[in-house]
């Protein structure tokens, strides 16, 4: 049960995440600054300097080395974390695959930021969406509270012996990372009890049982190893539910794979992830007062993608608008593609409407979301998926 001392604290999203890391007290953390993630690295470094954690902090010279360092540390047998954004994640790219393919349960907050060029420090999801096939779990967070909860939840799932995969916890740059909100922290001991000890099966540091990690793996075995990795990802669903229920008992908050906000009888649904969902909820509330049957489906777990469950959740809607905050140049947005794939073999299915919004931190407000909902009845009448629409963009 939630204890009385777990008061609401005014924390930025980054501070909430850093506090989750403090409570996890990893054996090794690698830090490297990049806006808007930097505040996580700074806050955690202060925890180290003040003796609040007994982590070995490695202040690396790049994100490539940050990921390489935590991969080495995790393989050695240490619970290991780092955090990044944007170009930092891009620089880690190669080693993201090494982490997942070596089955190392590293948890990494990703503070979403646009990719260069042109350089832009503000929020969109190009960074983490580009890494969606890197074999990492991806959890998205509407606000600081969810980012905090997701870090703890992700660690529990990632380290499960049936999963053993790394996990990204995504939160929106500046919008969530730098906004102060009321966040409720669990007490440290509860977190530590929930996550338990990290007990890797074959650590390098067990010199009595030497292991060769990362050998050359050719056409005769590589495919089987990839199949096992796919299996690990498929196992996430059952492990997620168990871990989410367990965490829910401690926090009194719910952790569904996705949140169904007034969707049960909704004719028009918006699908989105991260902070835009907060805005969309406010719009849904407002429109519901005007008797409009609208709802929001907020994706929390994007990798693996719970396609059957999401298909079922939206099957009765007339039109579903899918809001992507990253462009897939030459194709539809990644969230749209997932949803389209999820519903493709349903007999009765909603019409999808693709939207692209918020690149490079372009504002998305209630009026924009309301406009999306107001466009959907026309899509329903025309009975076909329209061309992608750009929200809050100057076309001329």
């Amino acid at each position: 049960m939630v204890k009385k001392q777990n008061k609401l604290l005014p924390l930025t999203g980054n501070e909430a995440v850093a506090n989750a890391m403090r409570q996890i007290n990893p054996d090794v953390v690698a830090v490297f600054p990049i806006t808007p993630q930097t505040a996580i690295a700074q806050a955690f470094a202060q925890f180290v300097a003040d003796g609040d954690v007994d982590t070995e902090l490695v202040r690396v010279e790049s994100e490539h080395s940050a990921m390489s360092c935590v991969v080495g540390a995790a393989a050695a047998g240490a619970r290991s974390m780092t955090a990044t954004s944007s170009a930092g994640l891009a620089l880690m790219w190669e080693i993201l695959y090494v982490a997942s393919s070596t089955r190392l349960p590293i948890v990494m907050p990703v503070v979403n930021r646009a990719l260069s060029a042109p350089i832009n420090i503000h929020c969109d999801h190009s960074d983490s969406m580009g890494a969606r096939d890197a074999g990492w779990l991806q959890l998205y967070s509407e606000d600081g509270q969810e980012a905090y909860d997701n870090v703890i939840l992700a660690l529990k799932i990632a380290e499960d012996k049936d999963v053993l995969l790394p996990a990204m916890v995504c939160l929106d740059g500046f919008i969530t990372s730098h906004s102060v909100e009321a966040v409720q922290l669990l007490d440290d001991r509860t977190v530590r009890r929930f996550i338990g000890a990290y007990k890797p099966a074959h650590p390098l540091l067990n010199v009595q049982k030497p292991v060769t990690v990362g050998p050359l793996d050719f056409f005769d075995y590589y495919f089987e190893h990839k199949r096992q990795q796919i299996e690990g990802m498929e196992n996430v669903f059952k492990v997620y539910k168990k871990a989410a229920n367990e965490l829910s008992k401690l926090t009194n908050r719910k952790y569904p794979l996705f949140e169904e906000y007034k969707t049960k009888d909704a004719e028009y649904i918006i699908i989105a992830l991260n902070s835009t969902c907060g805005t969309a909820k406010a719009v849904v509330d407002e429109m519901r007062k005007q008797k409009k049957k609208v709802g929001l489906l907020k994706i929390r777990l994007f990798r693996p993608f719970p396609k059957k469950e999401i298909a079922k959740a939206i099957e009765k809607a007339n039109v579903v608008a899918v809001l992507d905050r990253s462009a897939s140049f030459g194709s539809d947005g990644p969230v749209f593609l997932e949803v389209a794939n999820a519903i493709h073999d349903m007999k009765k299915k909603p019409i999808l409407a693709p939207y692209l919004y918020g690149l490079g931190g372009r504002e998305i407000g209630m009026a924009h979301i309301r406009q999306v909902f107001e466009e959907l009845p026309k899509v329903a009448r025309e009975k076909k998926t329209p061309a992608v629409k750009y929200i809050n963009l100057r076309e001329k």
Partner: protein
Amino acid sequence: MANLKEIAKMPERISGGHRMCAGCGAPIAVRQILSATKHDVIVANATGCLEVATTIYPYSAWKVPWMHSAFENAASTISGIEAAYRSLKRKGKVKKEIRFVAFGGDGGTYDIGLQALSGALERGHRFVYVCYDNEGYMNTGIQRSSATPLYASTTTDPAGKIRQGKQERRKMLAEIAAAHRIPYVAQTAIHNWSDVVNKATKAFEADGPAFINIFAPCPRGWRADESKTVMLSRLAAETGFWPMFEVENGEWKLNYNPASRKPITEFLKTQGRFKHLFRPENAPLLEKIQSNIDAEWERIKKICGAE
């Protein structure tokens, strides 16, 4: 330092039966280096010949914990492993005294891994980085690296009708490592086991990062006789092509200082990669190589305070 008899009794940490080429200098380097500590060791290996040819799944030639992650990150990988060791040892979860080694070829060290190496050296992790220098990207098929010597022919800088191989001199990696003011830096070569083991012993016992650049001939890539590996290495030292020195807590010392150096042609003529230099019209190029080596030898001697 242990004598040869004692070294021979040290447990083998890499087994025979791996798939390195006949005559390869790299496994000789590995055996010599790893025979220099009685402690348990954990190895990180950059992508390269040594990595691919010793760990073809489901086989491994390594009798010690070993990890490969990528080409450019052996130094950051070993920093993570060493950080994990520090952390878990402090918490009492690891009891043993363990040493940490990273092996990388010259491509993985001079070039693509230089940033990670510099970072790890500067951060002061207690580890030994060993560059087995065979003067090119041999695993991918003998391409030019920044360790490739002047006028050598490689597949990305071949000798041709108007261009005579690599036009640049190799960089002085050991000096770059020494500029990090780490406790121990050395340059050695596989023909001199006692020099290698002596230096590796110092590197393992240094209280901080240590860097060893070990000359490891690649007969395949150098177009040389694979039965002449050790001779190639010896000639490199005897001609002054590969100075043998160490930098211990900032003090430079020349470890091999012959009364007279052999002419560089003695070394060059043993290898097909320099064959084009022996055409009559290329005589000035040979002179250039010799004068470079003479000047460099004097420079190193001066730094080392040698006569």
